[in-house]
Each structure stands twice: as structure tokens, then as C-alpha cells.
């Protein structure tokens, strides 16, 4: 077998749907039936999963460490809120797209700042952009409602058919559908030659450039795409809660997001999804333990994760599933193993 055909064969084999993935999505859908009284928190998890998926695209695949990803979440949230509040675009799906595109536009513009410089500069610039937007939102309080946030948002039925109900059932299915569609898109992208070139860049930008990958253009593209995803997540937040306040830009949101992704593991798309579930359950558990001080435990989890080592934790977590898979399929362990992270 020649080398390019070999690469193509492996790439296609990886891109094929595995039965465990199908099981994952069926499980996600069946949650609606299993916990009919918990739609609100499940919607929360789905939104967070989408947001984490967006960070995974740049952190796990392109190796860009961002401390200000909430910037795009916030733009999406305010975008969707303003569109609905002023009745510019009342149909939620269309408004979702427009809000996402607005975030993508800002993402595209700021990507030129982000791709310059090394890790530390990137950290500072992403953090600075999020803070800047927060300050702007506070400054233009006549548009954003300042610290009170946008109030009185009323959502129209989705596609004119499904009205949001107070139990959040429609909101949940809506969010899950959006997540699924965007996940399919992300899955297609990361398994395409484009996605493979991103991994090459992450592993060694210099070498990637030497074999002819246009490093900067690829980074701009993926950063813009991630901003789009984050914008959609933010818009979903506004649409399902009918709220948008300054804390959508908060640093804690970006920091929590990192934790979500780190719990789930970076670089295999499901990390953000699994991480979101675990994070929300942890948060519920900790706030039932000490209502006001759950952040302490979240911080402790972060410290422990880093000290034990992320790779080691994921090996432990995947030991049992892999054992089962190995027994069933006779030899080859095939559950996605997270790749090592950007340095």
C-alpha cells in the first residue's frame, strides 16, 4: 500500500462512526425520558457541552490556550437577546445563526491578535479581549442594560411551531438538536484533511509550516469557527433562559470552561460533552454540601487533576471501558484515547 493511500485509509477508519458513539447519543436522548423533571439542568449541561466543544476545537486541536473564551459566549448571548428584545429577528433558529455569525466576525477580527506571539501573550490577549468586552457592555448600559442585564426577553416559537414551555422540555430538545448538528459538523471538520493539518500545527508549528501547511490561515479559520460555536452556545443560553447579563463575559465562565474540558479530556470532541456532565454533577454535589463555597471544591478538583496528571487520570478512567471493549471485540481497544495536550 502506498503512503498517501495508507494515510487516507487510517483517516477514514478513524472517521467511521463507532457503536459507542451511537450509544452515547441514544443515551443523551433517552435522558429526556429518564429524568422528566430535570429539563432545566439538562439544558444547562447541553449548553455547557456546546461551549466546551468550541474550546476543544482551538485548545485540543489547534493548541491555542484561551483564558477569555467567554467573550464569544457573551457576544452570542447579547446578540440573541437584542435580536429578540427589539423584534429584529424573532425566529429563534435564524437568530441563533445570526448571533453565532456575529461572534464569528469578532472571532475573525481578534484572531489576528491571538495568533501572534507565544502562549503567554495569547493568554493575556484573550483575557484582555474578554475583559474589554465586559467593560464595553458595562459602559453602553443603554444598549445592554448594564448590570441589570437585558430584561423582558420573550422568545417566539421555534420555526413557528414549538413554543418554549416553562418546564424547559422544548428548550432541552432544541439545545440537544443544535448540539448534535454542530457536533456532526465539528466531527466532519476534525476528520477532514483540514483537521489533520490542525493537529500537525499543534504538535509542531514549525514542522507543519515546513511541509506546506499555511499555519496562520489555518489558525485563523479554526479560531473563527470556535468563536461561532461559542456564540451559538451563548445565544442558546439567552434563548432558553430569556436572560443576558454582564456575567456572560465573566472570567469565571472562561475558567470553569477550562475545567470542564480538562475533566473530559481534550482533543477527541467528546471530552467537552462528558466533561460538561461531570462538571454539572460535581457542582450540584458540592453546592448541596456547602451552598456558598462550592468554588472551593471546584478549585481543589482542578489542583488535584493537574498534580495527578491529566493523562494518567484519563488512562484510569478509560481502563474499565477499554477492558470491556477489548473483551467484546476480541483484542482491539477502540474507545477514543485523548491525545496529549498542547504545551
Amino acid at each position: 500500500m502506498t503512503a498517501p493511500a495508507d494515510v487516507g485509509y487510517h483517516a477514514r477508519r478513524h472517521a467511521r462512526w463507532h457503536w459507542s458513539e451511537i450509544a452515547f447519543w441514544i443515551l443523551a436522548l433517552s435522558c429526556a425520558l429518564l429524568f422528566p423533571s430535570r429539563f432545566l439542568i439538562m439544558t444547562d449541561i447541553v449548553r455547557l457541552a456546546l461551549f466546551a466543544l468550541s474550546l476543544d476545537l482551538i485548545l485540543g486541536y489547534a493548541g491555542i490556550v484561551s483564558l477569555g473564551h467567554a467573550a464569544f459566549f457573551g457576544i452570542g448571548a447579547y446578540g440573541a437577546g437584542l435580536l429578540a428584545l427589539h423584534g429584529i429577528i424573532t425566529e429563534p433558529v435564524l437568530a441563533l445563526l445570526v448571533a453565532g455569525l456575529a461572534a464569528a466576525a469578532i472571532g475573525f477580527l481578534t484572531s489576528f491578535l491571538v495568533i501572534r506571539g507565544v502562549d503567554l501573550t495569547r493568554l493575556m490577549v484573550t483575557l484582555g479581549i474578554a475583559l474589554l468586552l465586559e467593560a464595553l457592555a458595562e459602559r453602553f448600559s443603554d444598549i445592554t442594560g448594564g448590570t441589570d442585564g437585558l430584561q423582558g426577553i420573550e422568545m417566539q416559537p421555534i420555526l413557528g411551531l414549538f413554543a418554549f414551555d416553562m418546564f424547559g422540555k422544548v428548550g432541552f430538545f432544541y439545545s440537544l438538536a443544535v448540539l448534535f448538528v454542530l457536533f456532526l459538523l465539528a466531527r466532519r471538520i476534525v476528520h477532514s484533511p483540514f483537521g489533520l493539518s490542525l493537529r500537525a500545527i499543534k504538535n509542531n508549528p514549525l514542522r507543519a509550516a515546513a511541509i506546506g501547511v499555511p499555519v496562520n490561515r489555518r489558525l485563523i479559520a479554526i479560531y473563527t469557527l470556535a468563536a461561532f460555536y461559542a456564540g451559538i452556545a451563548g445565544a442558546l443560553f439567552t434563548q432558553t433562559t430569556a436572560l443576558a447579563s454582564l456575567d456572560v463575559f465573566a472570567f469565571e465562565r472562561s475558567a470553569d470552561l477550562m475545567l470542564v474540558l480538562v475533566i473530559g479530556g481534550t482533543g477527541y470532541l467528546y471530552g467537552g460533552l462528558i466533561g460538561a456532565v461531570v462538571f454539572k454533577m460535581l457542582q450540584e454535589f458540592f453546592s448541596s454540601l456547602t451552598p456558598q463555597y462550592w468554588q472551593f471544591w471546584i478549585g481543589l478538583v482542578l489542583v488535584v487533576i493537574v498534580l495527578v496528571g491529566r493523562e494518567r487520570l484519563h488512562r484510569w478512567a478509560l481502563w474499565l471501558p477499554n477492558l470491556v471493549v477489548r473483551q467484546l471485540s476480541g483484542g482491539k481497544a477502540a474507545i477514543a484515547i485523548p491525545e496529549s495536550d498542547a504545551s
Partner: protein
Amino acid sequence: MTALFTILFDGVAYGMLLFVLACGLAVTLGLMNFVNLAHGAFAMAGGYVCAVLVNQSGWPFFAALPLAFVASALIGVVLERALYRHLYTRSHLDQVLFSIGLVFMSVAAVDYIMGSSRIFIKLPAALEGQIDFFGVGIGRYRLMIIVICGLLTAALQLVLARTRFGSRLRAAVDDPRAASGLGINVPQVFAFTFAFGCGLAGLGGALSAEILGLDPYFPLKFMIYFLIVVTVGGSSSITGPFLASLLLGIGDVAGKYYVPKVGPFVIYTIMIVILIWRPNGLFGRTATR
């Protein structure tokens, strides 16, 4: 005209304070290349130690200040030996996650122990009020800050440039392997430096309770300021961060006075522009690791 001088004076005091708060970070972040977002937590610890000593145990303010330094330095050395040193060689992402975790823990812990409201430190009467200096009102407290911080800065510069320890530190930072080959105990030098930086932050925290405000969210609120000082100032010497803090201090005070509506907007914009223009800082070396 007098307003201008007052702003300049307040700005310098503010900047000096920022420098004392952040210069420990200049060493860990700038020289040791460790992204320590939890630096503000050490400052907060010093502030709270001072507040408890003065308000509850009735210590005089000037006796409590050194204690704030010692307490933060002790916390620093314990954490450095127990946790931080394992992470020196890890990726930046790991360091960021770890220090964010520490920040969250410190915020919640202080909130739990001391309550979430802002606290004040009782000042001696000699530090209150203003001195009239050729028609310019000069706050006594701010004058004291300038004196203390100015002396500290001069001492630091002397220690780094003239003493044996200073040259060991510079050697350890430039090339840890070669330095340890020459018999320098590199981990010890780093631990000592880290602890000293934390101590300075603690002292800064105690001094800043009056000006910046001290509450459990201190590490989060001022994190960006410390980072600005270090990244904009560069890390080649102590002068860079010093000038950067003065600029930041004066800029912030002037901004709040002349264009109060714009708020922190200006500072962030300037920071981003400077970082784009010179990724290694205004006064940095052209090539850092």
C-alpha cells in the same frame, strides 16, 4: 494645576503599590517562566493577616506590616515546596489550571473564614489626613507608601545587581543546568525567591487594603493588573516592571479622574496594543524563552 500634581502623586503611589504587589510575579512569571495566576492570593493573605492583627489583636499598624510579609512568605514557601515545584516543567496550560484552582480555593476559603464584605485596617492617626505642600494636598498614607515602596525597590535593585545571591539567581534563571553544574543550589534559590516574592505581595496586600480595597475577590479583581505589569514591563530587569507599574498607576488614576465613564477600557486596550506591538514587553529582551 494642583489637581494635576495630586493626580500625579496619587498615580505614583498607586503605581509603587502595584510594583510591590507584582514584582514577585515578575520573577516567577518573567524569569522562571511559570504562569502563576494565584499571585494575588498571597497578597490577599498578607492583607488579611495584617487586618486581623491590627483590628482584633490590637497590634500597631507598623508592627503588623512585617508580620504580613512573613506570613505570606511562609505560605509561599510551603506551597512552593509542596506543590509549585512539581509544575515548573509542565505545560503552560497545566500551570494556568493549577493556579486558577488555587485562586478559587483561596477566594472561597477567605469568604468562609472572614466573610465576603470589604474590610478596613485601622490606621494610626499619624497616617490620616493630608499635608499641604506648596498648595498641593498630599495624602500622608500615600506618602508613606511611596517612601516604603521606593526604599524596597532600591533595596531589591541592589540585592539583584550587587550581591552574591542576586548573581546566583540571575545565573539560575539564565541556565539552570549550567548553574547547578557550578554548584548553585537552583531549587533552593528558586524557593527562596518565590517565598520572598510572595512576602512582598503580602506586604503590598496589607498596604493596599486602604487604597485598592480588600475583599475575598481581591485575587481575581487584580489578577489582570499584576499580569499587565509583568507582561508589559518585560522580565529582563526590575526596572521594566517598575516603569510599567508607574505608567499603569498614573494612567489608571488619571483615566478615572478625567474620563470616569470610560473606566478600565483604556487600560485593557493599551495592554493589547502593547502586546501586539512588542510581545516581549515594552522593556523586555528581544528574545526570551
